[in-house]
């Protein structure tokens, strides 16, 4: 019995570590499917994290915190959208600017909240199902953001591949010129996709500061935004593969933490570096298969679009 409880506890920490990656990556996937490369995920996550923390801390209600985080991520993505879609600035550079601004602004906002005990987002038990052995506590007794991440990724898959709007969004990402000629509004759709990405990244941030470690720590996103970007490539822009990838990375993260706790003779810094190294290895393995990447990469990814009239 004890080993079951232990396994359950470990699996629970894995879901907690994977959820922010999944949320952020699924938002970025939609943005990239529409042809926009938003490298500012890290900035949107960290601003979401700090605003969610402050929102929950001042009101005492974690759900208001979640909402604040989503709004903050969305506003940040709107800034990115205005720059890259309306003013057609370079998407790579603008994404970096968003990350730099997010890291700075979050540090400033959160300065007086460092070390304060935060508000935890409590799990919601699904009636009946949460009583199931093993699966119950793991899947049906989780917090709101976990449910959102799972339903969200399934919803994104359905939307992109089973609806007309999803088809249009993918068409824009693959050839914005033709989509425009067909009368689809390229810019409007891209704004929506970018904002969805921002909301998801904001939620990922809220998960970090309300669930993962309910407190505010500067730079607490610790590169998760960049790992989420890599996950989208790893998943070759497919939602269910993002789910698999996020849980793979969550497992690596938790695995190295347990290895540190067990006191292996490996320096802790090397173990902490594992998720970053794993990201590089995984990217190499995926991108060396040129056919796979060529068929799946949105063809207009990262390219500016100015409608001719």
């Amino acid at each position, binding site marked *: 019995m004890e080993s079951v409880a232990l396994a359950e506890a470990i699996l629970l920490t894995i879901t907690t570590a994977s959820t922010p990656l999944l949320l952020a990556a699924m938002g970025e996937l939609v943005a990239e499917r529409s042809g926009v490369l938003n490298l500012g995920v890290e900035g949107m996550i960290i601003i979401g994290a700090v605003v969610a923390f402050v929102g929950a801390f001042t009101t005492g209600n974690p759900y208001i915190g979640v909402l604040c985080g989503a709004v903050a991520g969305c506003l940040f993505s709107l800034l990115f959208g205005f720059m890259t879609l309306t003013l057609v600035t370079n998407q*790579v550079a603008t994404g970096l*600017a968003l990350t730099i*601004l997010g*890291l700075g602004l979050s*540090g*400033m906002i959160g300065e007086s909240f460092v070390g304060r005990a935060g508000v935890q987002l409590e799990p919601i038990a699904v009636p009946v199902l949460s009583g199931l052995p093993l699966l119950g506590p793991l899947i049906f007794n989780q917090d709101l953001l976990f449910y959102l991440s799972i339903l969200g990724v399934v919803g994104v898959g359905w939307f992109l591949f089973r609806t007309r709007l999803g088809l249009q969004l993918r068409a824009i990402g693959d050839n914005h010129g033709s989509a425009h000629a067909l009368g689809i509004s390229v810019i409007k759709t891209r704004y929506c996709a970018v904002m969805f990405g921002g909301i998801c990244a904001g939620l990922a941030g809220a998960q970090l500061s309300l669930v993962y470690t309910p407190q505010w720590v500067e730079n607490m996103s610790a590169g998760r935004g960049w790992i989420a970007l890599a996950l989208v490539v790893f998943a070759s822009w497919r939602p269910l593969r993002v789910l698999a990838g996020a849980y793979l990375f969550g497992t690596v993260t938790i695995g190295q933490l347990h290895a540190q706790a067990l006191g292996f003779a490996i320096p802790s*810094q090397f173990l902490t570096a594992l998720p*970053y190294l794993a*990201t590089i290895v995984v*990217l190499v393995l995926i991108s060396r298969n040129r056919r796979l990447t060529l068929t799946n990469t949105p063809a207009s990814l990262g390219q500016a679009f100015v409608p001719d009239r």
Partner: protein
Amino acid sequence: MRVELERRPQHSALFSAVSPFIALALTVIAGAVLFSAMGKNPLDALFSFFIEPLTEVWSLHELAIKAAPLILIAVGLSVCFRSNNWNIGAEGQFIIGAVSGSLLPIMFHEWDSVLVLPIMLIMGAIGGALYAAIPALLKTRFNTNEILSSLMLVYVAQLFLDWIVRGPWRNPEGFNFPESREFDPEAVLPELVPASGRADLGIVFAVVAALLTWFMLSYMLRGFRITVLGQSARAGRFAGFSATGMVFFAFIFSGALAGFAGISEVSGSIEQLQPVISPGYGFTAIIVAFLGRLNPLGIIAAGLVLALTYLGGEAAQISIGLSDKIARVFQGLLLFFVLACDTLIHYRVHIRRSEQSELAGEGT
């Protein structure tokens, strides 16, 4: 109201010259708004942020110390960005350069020779170049996105430095502090005018590197290749320029400069290794490169401006009790404004009140 862009037949020479200045002005205005939102007198705050650090000689020395790594790294990045190679990992190359250069004064500190310093600098540059060659190799060999791989290597480098300073290179006489042995005098970069401040040779290296790179970009075939391959890989291929070679050149060039900046910083201003040696120079240098419009001469000026934001952040913290995080906010805003103003170079911007009324309002 909507914003519409109209492509200019030719890029505007006027705006390519003034756009960085418009961006700076907008950043100062945004700063004033930010300061008054925080309940400070905006003029006082702007004064202590941007002017006060320039009024004293020692503080000008500090400006040179902060500007040197920024300029060195940004000059390298300008070659990368011009050739359309996105090296985002200069921060990691800076750190690895510092570690490889420090090998000599830490492991072989008994060796006492005038050769120590030059060898250190060369080793730093080689270390940075090799570390930058990893994303270049992965990009050319396996088609791996260089943005993500170079960025991931930053985290790896930071953790490596942390390990080596706390572990094998910890100072045996350092009372267990996480610091390396202090460098001996022959391993320390000489100061320029020791009587008036701390500024060392680093700023001289930075200006020389900028001038040489400017010469290469303007007058040498290599510079022409960089521009052609960056603007159109296809055109470059027809001209017989090797795209693979250019990826390696750009990464190794910028990595070497970042590594050189790393060892100069450690040898000139810190004089030992510590768990953290950079306040984000590698990332701030990206802003420097863009503010300098990817031109090495412009980068010298831009490096001084961004160095001022670091000093201003410290000054504002001391004199008016603002958070020093505000420097990062300024840097982020500045990059936004620089990118937005660059739009004016290639496009005319029309602001229309509604979709029907043509040319209702025109602004630039």
